């Protein structure tokens, strides 16, 4: 059920500040796409534009066209919650709901969207936690608070929560930046597993990670502070990391940036 995402000429604004300018890219279903680039170049802004999380901030707006399987998600008759149900998101910092148990955290999306049947919820908890490589660690303490887990476990809990609602696309905004190498590895393994079912787009500052996990890589950059971010190059990951077309990309991935 994974879907193709097509961005054409997308620009995002915070008030009068233009954060990204004219991004166009196509993301194929059941692939992992990595977005890399220096801080403040608009990777996260672009990612947040894909599930309309960008507009949560006051004054934020967007121009251009973003389609998911040929439906423009910014059409005026599109239901924002439906878009977000289709396109899940994992954030940089783990954000389990503090008043809920592990079990409730996983089924939060289902329960708050009206699923009540206990057997369905039980199934979803087990399946999602197993997909997130967390089941064995928490199966005996599902009624304990989610906030009591370690950072890596919390992040996997958030991933389980995201995939429990069966989205078609999963966006990940630097999901491993607060995690140790072992938890990072667990999440990368998880991404390979999830690739069979979901389209994944990940923002990362870790270029080894981008090279390891992704099928395609997009490199974002800015000319100077205050300029909008642009997509410099978007291609197959091996090509980006071995033989990039653009000089800028090569400078960045070889560490000669700036």
């Amino acid at each position, binding site marked *: 059920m994974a879907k193709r995402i097509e961005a054409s000429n997308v620009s995002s604004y915070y008030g009068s500040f233009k954060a990204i300018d004219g991004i166009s890219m196509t993301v194929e279903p059941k692939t992992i796409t990595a977005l890399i680039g220096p801080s403040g170049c608009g990777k996260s802004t672009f990612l947040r534009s894909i599930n309309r999380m960008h507009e949560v901030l*006051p004054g934020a707006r967007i121009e251009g066209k973003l389609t998911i399987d040929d439906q423009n998600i910014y059409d005026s008759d599109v239901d924002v919650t439906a878009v977000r149900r289709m396109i899940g998101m*994992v954030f940089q910092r783990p954000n*389990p*709901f503090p*008043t809920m148990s592990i079990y409730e955290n996983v089924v939060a999306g289902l329960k*708050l969207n009206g699923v009540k049947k206990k057997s369905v919820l039980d199934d979803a908890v087990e399946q999602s936690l197993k997909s997130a490589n967390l089941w064995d660690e928490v199966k005996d303490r599902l009624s304990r608070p989610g906030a009591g887990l370690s950072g890596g476990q919390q992040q996997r809990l958030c991933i389980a929560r995201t995939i429990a609602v069966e989205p078609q696309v999963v966006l990940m905004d630097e999901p491993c930046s607060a995690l140790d190498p072992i938890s990072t590895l667990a999440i990368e393994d998880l991404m390979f597993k999830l690739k069979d079912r979901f389209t994944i787009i990940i923002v990362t500052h870790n270029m080894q990670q981008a090279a390891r996990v992704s099928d395609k890589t997009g490199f974002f950059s800015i000319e100077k502070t205050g300029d909008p971010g642009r997509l410099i190059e978007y291609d197959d990951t091996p090509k980006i990391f071995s033989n990039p077309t653009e000089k800028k990309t090569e400078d960045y991935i070889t560490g000669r940036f700036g």
Partner: protein
Amino acid sequence: MTTVQMTPDQLRGRKLSPVVNMIVAVAAVAVAAAVVLGLGIGNWVLVVVMAGVLYLAGLFAAATRVEGRRSARDRIWKTLVYSACVLAVLPLASVVWTLVSKGAARLDGDFFNSSMNNIGARDPNGGAYHAIVGTLEQVGLATLMAVPLGVLGAIYLVEYGRGRFALTVRFFVDVMTGIPSIVAGLFVLAFWVLIVSPWFNDGQPRFSGFAASLALTVLMLPTIVRSTEEMLRLVPGPLREGAYALGVPQWKTILRVVIPTALPGIVTGVMLAVARAAGETAPVLLVAGGAAAINFDPFAGNQASLALFVYQQAGDASRYAPARAWTAALTLVALVLILTIAAKLLARRNRLSK
């Protein structure tokens, strides 16, 4: 050229021993007593104040000699902070002690079982049953009205309010915080008792406990709105975004994620408002009138309240009245305390064991 040395060579330092500290304290008291009482310029209050100042000066001098200036300054500030803490708690302890010692005399079954109906100046008994009923009903009704309004208002301000209208609302909430209770009472008197209540009472204006609740609601609203607003703002944004990312609509996110996270703080704010309302005298006097007999119906006829009862008994000519006033004051404080503790326990009652 002089060089400034920022890092010390020696990491260990000498400590001022507690014995020296004690000696400085005793010496300060002795000197202060000798000066004040010897010269006859004041009583023990001045001795305490002077001893305090002398102790600080002596401690600073001693600590500077032994430990150096930085530690000495640290000691002085620590002492000042502890003193401020004690000074702040003293009046509170004094109030509680006064209430308990003077209120215990009439703390009997009669006090909680009877009203002031048919109690004359020569009768030693009489009770506050009618006042307790009045306080509970008035504050209960006011809470029922103020909490939903206040919490919804705060949700609007934090989650939805944008632009000029939200700013105006917030400004008027701030203005409302400063309304004196007598003004709230006068407002309800003019609006509810004199204009609206005649519609329900064959053209005759009528006092009622409900009118008092309206005035208390006016007083509680700003406290609840402001404290709830602050608590909702403390809920991290990523938590809301986490719920949005699951496709949860905004209203459900607020109801099931934001409010539960902020609940303990909201309850504290509500209890502060309840405590303030329970202690108000003026609005009750103005619009409920006060009564000596029990009136269970808050919508018709005069009603008393504990604060009003204290006010009336304290000024009563009977020699048995002051004891009743003290016991009523003790009851009021105990009531607010019990309500606060109960609310805190309810809010903390998290099904999740930590």
